[in-house]
Structure formats: structure tokens, C-alpha cells
């Protein structure tokens, strides 16, 4: 790539997390039996009319604010006309000349360098259904459950120069939609998907090269690999003395290649025009002001604040802010015990482990952040050992019990009474004369053998620091 530079722009479709569809009251739930979340409106029956979902407008505007866009007080729905069996009306209701949001940007950091990626526009549109081709009876079926589901399309400027930058931008957008709660961010179910426009040009050249549009990039990894492949492919084309053709290419994740889907000649003329069934979308100044005031702290700002305020490392801050609920949990737990690093460790250790095992998110568990904060506090205060904290974590997570009461009730409180521990130490020394000899002979590692003996006698409740101190004194 020494001689060439890549130019990349992304078009991201995010499904808005509304309960009902964009223009009718059908459910947006994923995974229902085919054609069950369907009515006369979203199946394009004769004579029916669309009525816009106000919540979708709000979500689109909130997203625009979060990425520094101007939110247009008046925007216009337009029809995008084309024929396809999964498109029951024969047109998609989208926005064309006047989208809801324009002129935004998002800063990303890759390899320590911060770059500003322009966001051209965000517009609202309804999704199409799904064609299902059945090899069995050599037929095609159409499922319209997804037809009419609200989407926003977020169109970037061609400001990215590498696959890493594209992925960083996509991850940043993903974190924002999830933070705002406007999209569930599920890439496997297609709630968050991406097309990439990729071209290359000789370094130093101002004009863009001919671009290819890559489709079917349904994971961060695929985005990375598809763009890398496409850059290399275009470079080969140019080095062979050929010209890159403008076309749409489909990414094949199994073979890790992009293949031509349709050329420029086959591109649709969508014949956009304002949808006469819908009035212009007007957003009142008070609503805009209220939504702006409600805007949560966004991932980038929060990461910086956690590092600054709680002294977390960049990596810890990144893990904890990847999910808004996780970051909220962290801050609430820290407020209880005042030990941000310990809270961070326990969350990244025990908590994430237990969440992964159960395949749930932090907002779906019984454990409150106050409980985790208390758990850190009683470990630090020597009430229980870190090992016991780890052992009981799963139970606390399931039950939502408060740790201090829980360990007292179960008799798990650490023994810090010197005389009780001394008895156990004396017994251990008396029962193992050979090991005592060996220790005295220089095998000081045997201290952990004695520790194990004493822990067994005290059912793990002895304060390890006290045990070590007494052992060292008595074995002298």
C-alpha cells in the first residue's frame, strides 16, 4: 500500500428500538413465525396509508445530536421506487432531499491518533421484508415481519483511510446507538449493519478513485477483512494496468473474497419524490431542547472521565464503558466502597465471567451494584477472603442478596481472632514434624503447605495474613 491510499465511507443501518413499526402498529419483535407481525399497511394492501411513529422520529433526532449533527426542524419522507418481492408497496419510504439530521462528525482514535470522521446525514426509512428461497420445492417465499421496521441510515463522509479506522468508527457508532438505547446493536439479527464504499488512489492525489460498494458485512471482523481484501484487490487491478469498475460487491465471509453483484449499468433509478401520504416531519423546538438535555454522557466522554476521576487504565475504562449498563454498574458500586480499581477488577473478573456463563447482560441480573460495592468493601476490611468472595459470587448474582448479611448468615466470616488461629497453627505444627524439619532446613516454600492445613481446619475462614505472620513466628 505504500503507493496507494484507501478512501472509505460507511453507510450504517441501525434498527430503531421502537415497539411498533415505522408506519403501522405491528410489533417489531424479532424471530416471530413468518408473516405474523403483519397488517394491511405493512403488507402494502390497496388503499392503506402510513402514519409515522413519533418515537422513531425522537430516536433518530437523539442519534443525530449524539454525533454532532444539525437536526432539521422540518424533514421530508420520500418514496424510493423499485420492484422486489420483499418490498410490498413497490417503494420504500425513506428521506432524500431533506433528511432529519445532517452535518455531523465523530472522533475516533486509532494507534494513538485521533481523526475526525464526517457524518453527511442520518435519515429514517422503513425496512423491507425477507425473501426465502426454498430449494426443496424450488420456490420463493416472502416473510413480511420485518417490512416496515424503522431504520436509520447513517452515512459517513469518505474520511476513513484504513480498515482499522473503518472498524473504529463503526464500533464508536455502535457504542453510541446502544448507549442512547435507540438500537439494540445486535449485528447477528441485522439490527446494526453496514455497507462500505471503498476506493484507492495514489498517495498525494486529490481526486477519488472509482469506488466499489461492499455489502453483507455483518460483523466488525467482516468489515475489517472485507475492506482489507477489497483494497488489495483494487491495488492488483491498478497494478495490472486495468481500471477499477464502479459496482456493488458482495462479501463472502467463508472464502474471504468480494464478488461482483451488479454493475453501474444495472443501478436503479429510484425516482425519489416526496411521499404525498405524509406531511413533512416537524420537530418542535421544545422537544429538541428536551431531548438534548436528556442526552446521556457518551462512551468517549465517559471513558475519559473514568480514567480521570477514578484513575482507571485506558483498557479498563474501555471495557467498562463498552456497555452503558456496565458503566452505570461500575459507578454505583464504586460509590459504595470508594475502591474503583478493586471494583473494576471484580467486575472484569467474577462479574463478566458469571455473565458470560449465563449469556446475560448486567441489567438482567438480580445483583445490584450496591452489593458488588459491599462485597469489595468487606474483602478489603478483612471480613472475608478474596477467595470466598469469588466462590460466593455466583450465588450473590443469582439471589441479589447483600454480601455482608449473606456471609454472616452462612458463617463465612473470616477468623481474625489470634488465639483461635494460634490453636490451629499449633496443631498443624504438632501434626507434621517432618515438614517442620524440612522448613527449618530451608524449604520455606512449605509455608503454603501449612497454610493449606490451617485453612482446612478453619474451613477457609482464617485470615491469611494473620496465619502467615504466626507461622513465620512459630517456625522461626
Amino acid at each position, binding site marked *: 500500500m505504500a503507493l496507494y491510499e484507501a478512501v472509505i465511507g460507511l453507510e450504517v443501518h441501525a434498527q430503531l428500538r421502537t415497539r411498533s413499526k415505522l408506519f403501522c402498529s405491528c410489533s417489531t419483535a424479532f424471530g416471530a413465525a413468518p408473516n405474523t407481525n403483519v397488517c394491511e399497511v405493512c403488507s402494502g*394492501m*390497496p*388503499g*392503506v*396509508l402510513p402514519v409515522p411513529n413519533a418515537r422513531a422520529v425522537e430516536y433518530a433526532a437523539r442519534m443525530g445530536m449524539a454525533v454532532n449533527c444539525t437536526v432539521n426542524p422540518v424533514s421530508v419522507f420520500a418514496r424510493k421506487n423499485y420492484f422486489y418481492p420483499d418490498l410490498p408497496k*413497490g417503494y420504500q419510504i425513506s428521506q432524500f432531499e431533506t433528511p432529519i439530521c445532517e452535518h455531523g462528525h465523530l472522533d475516533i482514535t486509532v494507534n494513538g491518533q485521533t481523526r475526525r470522521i464526517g457524518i453527511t446525514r442520518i435519515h429514517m426509512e422503513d425496512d423491507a421484508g425477507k425473501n426465502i428461497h426454498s430449494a426443496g420445492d424450488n420456490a420463493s417465499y416472502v416473510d413480511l415481519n420485518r417490512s416496515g421496521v424503522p431504520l436509520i441510515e447513517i452515512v459517513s463522509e469518505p474520511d476513513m483511510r484504513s480498515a482499522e479506522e473503518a472498524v473504529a468508527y463503526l464500533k464508536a457508532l455502535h457504542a453510541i446507538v446502544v448507549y442512547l438505547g435507540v438500537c439494540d446493536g445486535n449485528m447477528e439479527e441485522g439490527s446494526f449493519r453496514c455497507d462500505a464504499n471503498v476506493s484507492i488512489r495514489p498517495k498525494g492525489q486529490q481526486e477519488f478513485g472509482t469506488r466499489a460498494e461492499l455489502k453483507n458485512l455483518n460483523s466488525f471482523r467482516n468489515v475489517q477483512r472485507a475492506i482489507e481484501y477489497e483494497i488489495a484487490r483494487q491495488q492488483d487491478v491498478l497494478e495490472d494496468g486495468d481500471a477499477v469498475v464502479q459496482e456493488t460487491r458482495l462479501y463472502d465471509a467463508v472464502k474471504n473474497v468480494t464478488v461482483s453483484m451488479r454493475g453501474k449499468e444495472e443501478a436503479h*433509478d429510484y*425516482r*425519489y419524490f416526496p411521499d404525498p401520504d405524509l406531511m413533512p416531519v416537524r420537530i418542535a423546538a421544545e422537544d429538541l431542547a428536551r431531548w438534548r438535555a436528556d442526552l446521556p454522557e457518551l462512551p468517549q466522554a465517559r471513558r475519559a472521565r473514568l480514567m480521570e476521576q477514578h484513575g482507571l487504565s485506558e483498557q479498563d475504562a474501555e471495557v467498562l464503558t463498552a456497555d452503558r449498563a456496565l458503566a452505570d454498574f461500575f459507578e454505583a458500586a464504586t460509590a459504595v466502597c470508594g475502591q474503583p480499581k478493586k471494583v473494576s477488577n471484580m467486575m472484569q473478573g467474577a462479574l463478566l465471567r458469571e455473565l458470560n456463563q449465563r449469556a446475560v447482560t448486567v441489567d438482567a441480573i438480580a445483583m445490584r451494584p450496591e452489593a458488588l460495592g459491599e462485597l469489595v468493601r468487606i474483602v478489603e476490611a478483612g471480613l472475608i477472603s478474596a477467595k470466598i468472595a469469588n466462590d460466593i459470587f455466583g450465588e450473590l448474582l443469582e439471589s441479589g442478596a447483600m454480601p455482608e448479611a449473606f456471609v454472616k448468615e452462612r458463617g463465612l466470616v473470616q477468623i481474625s481472632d489470634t488465639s483461635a488461629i494460634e490453636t490451629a497453627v499449633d496443631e498443624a505444627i504438632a501434626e507434621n514434624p517432618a515438614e517442620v524439619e524440612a522448613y527449618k532446613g530451608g524449604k520455606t516454600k512449605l509455608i503454603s503447605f501449612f497454610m493449606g492445613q490451617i485453612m482446612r481446619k478453619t474451613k477457609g475462614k482464617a485470615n491469611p495474613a494473620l496465619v502467615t505472620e504466626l507461622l513465620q513466628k512459630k517456625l522461626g
Partner: protein
Amino acid sequence: MSDTSTAIVSLSLADVRDRLARRELTAEQVTAACLDRIAATEPAIAALLTNRGEAVLAEARALDGAGPDPAKPLWGVPLTVKDALTTAGTRTTCGSRILGDFTPHYDAFAVARLREAGAVILGKTNMDEFAMGSSTENSAFAPTRNPWNVARVPGGSSGGSAASVAAGQCFGSLGTDTGGSIRQPASLCGCVGLKPTYGRVSRFGLVAYGSSLDQIGPLTRTVEDAALLLSVIAGHDPRDATSAALPVDDYMGALAARKDLSGVRIGVPREFRGEGIDPEVSAACQAALDKAQELGASIVDVELPHTPYSIAAYYIIAPAEASSNLARFDGVRYGRRAESPRDLADLYVRSRAEGFGDEVQRRIMLGTYVLSSGYYDAYYRKAAQVRRLIREDYEKALARCDVLCGPASPVTAWGLGELTSDPLKMYMMDVFTLSLNLAGLPGLCIPVGMGGRSGMPVGLQMLGRAFGEGDLLAAANVLSGALGVPGVAPACEGA
């Protein structure tokens, strides 16, 4: 037909409704009289695409069993509905083969309002396919004939509704008006036709032709009857984002309040007096204006200078919207599907080529062209600008007067087949009606007598301010009362 039946179907909607409410007539008697009249006239005029026949008698008997309900202003009144409106459980074809035997599971808003008001829906009326036409000859099934002379057209596209009202098959009908499709057939059939302000009646369930122009309205034999029907179907509908949230005026009260035309300023646009108007139409309209002056109205000269551009603007905007609205008729989910298609393209091409008639295909192509990349600015955008100028013309004129008047059609009903080979000449038949749809304003047509030469009805168009249906109906009611209405047509070959 028995004499009783003939007497019943000659009543106005208001009269029959009152007699039903007083139980002087039963719903079954009235419905049976209408069915008799349909049986007698339908072979000659072909006004109906679907005749619900005996099924409606059962509905009428059920109404009689329950007894009159003062909360139902159309209790027991038989009506017909243009086949562009969906009717739950009754076939809806829009005059097209492409819909096949499509039977919707949902009523249009206006149809639901009629049913809730206690009306009996006798059947669905014939129309130009997808409301594209001015003579009802573009119906995929059969042309409807004018009940005043069955050798002539009834006008269109709501020709079936106008003919069924004029012939006494029903006491009123719902039509749709995109460029004059209620007013022009009302004019040619000698009945009253009202196109309300855009947004006054919900379009939910109206199979769309030109969505920004379409309105549903009543066709009746008297102005009072039109006011009654409008009172029932007007109002906000949350399922139509373009329906107005304004309260509905008391139209019957407005009618009762006006006894003459004193203080009413009638504007006569210079552009509605021009060339191309048949002298018998001019004469009848002038006589009506003279009568209006006698009743106290003053006549004002006004201008609508952009009227000459309205046909061009209309024939860009309406087909553009139609080309998109009709895309859903693709043979995939419902309606006609081509036999054994080779592939997807073949399925689309053949289903649509076989399912749509010539005029519909012509307008789809026209609309597709004017929206195409590279032509949009020159056509669609320019037409939208012209539309704004036309609206401003009306606003200026209606600032100087209360009502605008002119002929609804430049000629009286012409012979079947006379204009079918000349689409441009056919388009000119709407010259006086379609600018009103571009402006979104209300207009109605009242019969003002028979043409001196043809003996066929002449209609006067009266146009008013946005949501001013009350004033408009009140003025029209006074004038029509003084001029008289022709009543029920004979439905046979004319002299």
C-alpha cells in the same frame, strides 16, 4: 316496477331518511324498491360492478328488527359506493382486471362511517380504471351509460356513482375526485357532486390514484342530501396522516341558516368563460348566475391567471404519484398474477401488462418518465411550483369574493366512443375541474337545467375556501332550490 317502488326511489335522501325514522317506510321496503330499480335500469346503464343483491335485504330486515336509531343519521338508507373504496367482505376492483377478485378485510374510513350511520350499501359502482378517465369508458368491465340518454357517457371517473344516483338506484353514492371525477359526472348526469377540501375526509381505504389530489365526496340528487352525507363522512382519522384535525362544521345548520344569497359575492373567473365552452352550457350557467343575482348575490370579475397551466401540471403530478401508487399491483401478494412466469421479471411484466388497461399504462409510463433521473427538475419540480402559483391564484380570488362559479364541464354528455381515440381531447374535458384539486379547495356541482341543444344536463361548479363546505353548501342549496333539480332519470334511449 310497482308504483310504490317508483315513488320511493324518487324521494330525496333526506325525505326517505325522515320517513324511515318515523317508520312510515321500513328499511326492507326502501331497499327492495332500490333493488327493483336496479333490476329495471342496470341492463341499460351498467352503473354497478358489484350488486350485493339479496344480501342487503337481510341487512335491511335486521335494521327493521332493531328499529330506527336516532343516533344513526342514515338509518335504513340505501347507498352505493364507488369501487375505488375498500369494503370489508365485498369485492373491490377499482375498475381494473389487475385486482381480480380482491376482497379486502377492511372498510374505507368513509364506508365504515356510512355503516355506523345505519346505511345499507347496495353495491359498488363502475368507474374508469383506477379513476383514470372522464367517461367511465376506461372501466375494464363495461362502460356505464348516462341515464338521461343511454347512448351517451355519464362522465367519469365516478360515472357509475353519478349514473346510479341519477337513475334512482340509490339515494346517494360516494365518489372520488382527483381532477373532477365527482363534479364532472355529476354535471353530465344532472346530480349534485361535492369534492370536499383535501384532508376533510379520510383517504384511508381509497385505492390511491394521485394521493395529493384524491378526495372522497358524495353524489346525490339534492344539495341537502350532499350536506347530510358529508356530515357523516367528514372528520379526522388517525389512520390518514393527511386528514385534517379540524372540527367538522354543522352543515345542516348552515343550510337552515341561509334563506337567500344576500351578501354573497360570486366571483366569475375570466378563465372559466373562455373559448371552447359549448353555447348551451354557457347559456345555462349564465341563467343560473342571473338567478343568483335575483336572490341577492353580487357578481365579481376575478382572474385565475395560471389556469392554462393546470392541465400540464396535473398531468405531471397525478401520473407521477400514480406510477408509484400502482407499483404495489405486482402479482406477488394479491390480485392478478400471470400464469407460469419464467422468472421474476416475467412475473412483473406480464402481470402488469395483462392487468392494466391502456390509459393506466399510459399514465404509469408518463409518471415514471417525469420522475426519472435527469427529468425530475424539468417536470415534477416545475409542476409543483406551478401548483403553488395556482393555489395562490385561488387565494387571491377568494379574498375578493365568497364563491367562484363556472361550468363544471365545457360540454354536456357526449356519445359513447366519441373521444376514446383522442386522449388529449379527453383530458381537456377536465379543464375547469382539475385546478381545484391542485389547490386542495372544496367545490361542488349543481344541476342548472338541460342544455337547449342536447337536452342533456348542465352543471354549474361552485368553489369555496378551504374547509368552507358549510358556506358553499348553504349558497348552493339556495340557488339549487330556486332553479330546481331534474330528479330521477328515465334510464332509456334519449330523443
